[in-house]
């Protein structure tokens, strides 16, 4: 068993009490079995951990007073960012730690991928673990300001946790809550820094990186909230413990949002676990891996793959922020993809010419392919526009959209042929369901004010 669905009672730690040891660094709390899942999510699924439960399970955050040790432990643990880019965490920590003067840390909970809600769930279920990670990372880099960036109303639990922690003096640095607008790019690092600075949540040109010049010009560390939760555990139990799960190149566990015909749920899974233990590809037309900047893979391919970038990259895919969606046989992949790309086009910040011009055209072309019968040149147009927008944005929005579009054209090539003859395999399966499968916001953004 390598996964722990939040709506089932799965707790391997309970079966391995022989390996539990008392950890002095955590003030006497029980050191959990290394192999035990969940690491991050509550032991009793669906029951958020309040501060008392959190302290009983993990103990107090092990402040060390200085930067050196924790950054080294994070490097040895091999922790990578869980927000989608999988960038080595210790490198960002080290860059900001080296800087002098005012420094900023931001816990990024503005999960803006419509198909992902693992950060939202983590913030509600284990807010104290995220806040521990924020504090420990803040101390490790010598931050002078800390922010928690999230969607309004995302987690009453995290606000309560902040108050409780303040009352018992658990925090090293005060935390300011900052609100993220409901836009796809709101969590993009430079967009986040713009928003915190009082501007719209739109990306800026790199360089400079925000780690060099971020909020108000100060070196700024932005880490995803799940990343910080893992960091809080590495600070307590060490890199060896962290590496007891996962693979040598991709250690640890990760949260994933899994969508099937029957259910959408967040699971905490070991990296390297067979994908078929998370989602049954049988009967699925294809599986979307990595979200709306991700990649469609044929169901047959998915049944042979493991969770992690090492395996997925060989098929042009990446785990991203952990979205895995198995498209049921009774839904049209082309229709679903066209809707997603229309959404992505609408979510372009509109700052860069190629993205502004290319994405709406690609969306319209996909909609044509999803219809019955299309003009002969549409596929060639799509391929050309995909090539034209790649690598030409200030952020990776055009590149991510192109990844999604290209894998759509490859995986659903037979479906495109069917549609050109006026058919659709979704209707061939005798299905009556026309309900959209891939989640999108109920209302598409309409105005410039939506950016702030």
């Amino acid at each position, binding site marked *: 068993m390598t996964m722990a669905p939040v709506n089932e009672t799965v707790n391997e730690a309970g079966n391995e009490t022989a390996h539990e040891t008392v950890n002095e660094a955590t003030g006497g709390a029980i050191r959990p079995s290394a192999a035990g899942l969940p690491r991050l999510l509550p032991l009793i699924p669906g029951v958020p951990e309040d501060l008392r439960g959190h302290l009983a399970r993990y103990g107090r955050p092990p402040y060390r007073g200085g930067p050196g040790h924790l950054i080294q432990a994070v490097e040895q643990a091999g922790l990578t960012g869980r927000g989608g*880019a999988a*960038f080595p965490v210790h490198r960002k920590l080290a860059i900001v730690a080296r800087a002098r003067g005012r420094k900023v840390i931001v816990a990024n909970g503005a999960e803006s991928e419509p198909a992902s809600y693992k950060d939202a769930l983590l913030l509600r279920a284990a807010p104290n673990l995220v806040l521990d990670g924020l504090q420990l990372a803040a101390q490790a880099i010598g931050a002078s300001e800390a922010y928690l960036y999230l969607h309004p109303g995302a987690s009453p639990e995290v606000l309560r946790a902040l108050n409780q922690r303040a009352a018992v003096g658990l925090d090293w640095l005060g935390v300011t809550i900052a609100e993220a607008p409901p836009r796809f790019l709101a969590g993009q690092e430079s967009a986040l820094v713009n928003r915190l600075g009082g501007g719209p949540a739109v*990306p*800026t*040109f*790199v*360089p400079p*990186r925000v780690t060099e010049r971020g909020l108000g010009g100060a070196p700024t560390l932005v880490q995803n909230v799940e990343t910080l939760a893992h960091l809080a555990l590495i600070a307590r139990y060490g890199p060896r413990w962290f590496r007891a799960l996962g693979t040598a190149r991709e250690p640890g566990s990760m949260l994933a949002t899994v969508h099937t015909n029957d259910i959408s749920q967040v699971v905490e899974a070991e990296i390297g676990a067979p994908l078929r233990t998370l989602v049954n590809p049988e009967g699925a037309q294809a599986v979307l891996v990595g979200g709306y900047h991700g990649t469609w893979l044929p169901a047959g391919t998915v049944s042979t793959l493991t969770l992690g970038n090492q395996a997925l990259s060989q098929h042009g895919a990446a785990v991203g922020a952990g979205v895995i969606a198995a498209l049921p046989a009774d839904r049209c992949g082309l229709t679903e993809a066209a809707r997603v790309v229309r959404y992505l086009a609408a979510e372009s910040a509109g*700052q*860069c*010419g*190629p*993205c502004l*011009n*290319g994405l709406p055209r690609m969306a319209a072309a996909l909609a044509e392919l999803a219809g019955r019968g299309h003009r002969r040149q549409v596929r060639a147009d799509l391929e050309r526009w995909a090539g*034209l927008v790649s690598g*030409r*944005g*200030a952020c990776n929005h055009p590149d991510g959209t192109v990844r999604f579009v290209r894998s759509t054209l490859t995986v659903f090539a037979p479906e495109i042929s069917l549609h050109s003859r006026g058919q659709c395999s979704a209707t061939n399966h005798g299905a009556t369901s026309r309900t959209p499968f891939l989640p999108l916001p109920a209302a598409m953004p309409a105005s410039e004010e939506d950016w702030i």
Partner: protein
Amino acid sequence: MADTLRVNPINCTGHGVCAELLPELIALDEWGYPIVDPRPVPPALDLEARRAVAACPALALKLFRAERTADRSA
């Protein structure tokens, strides 16, 4: 160390001056935005490249030191 041309796509408004001054390294896409050769500027075109940078009405075209532009991942 040879420099590399890069366009800041946020600042660029598609005037097209750069492609006119430096067709060897810059072409325009079908919407009028520059497609810049990512390779280091050959010494023979160094002066023309600097001229194109200076002429950009949006101040969007820049020369970057090679090691700087390599630093773009993540």
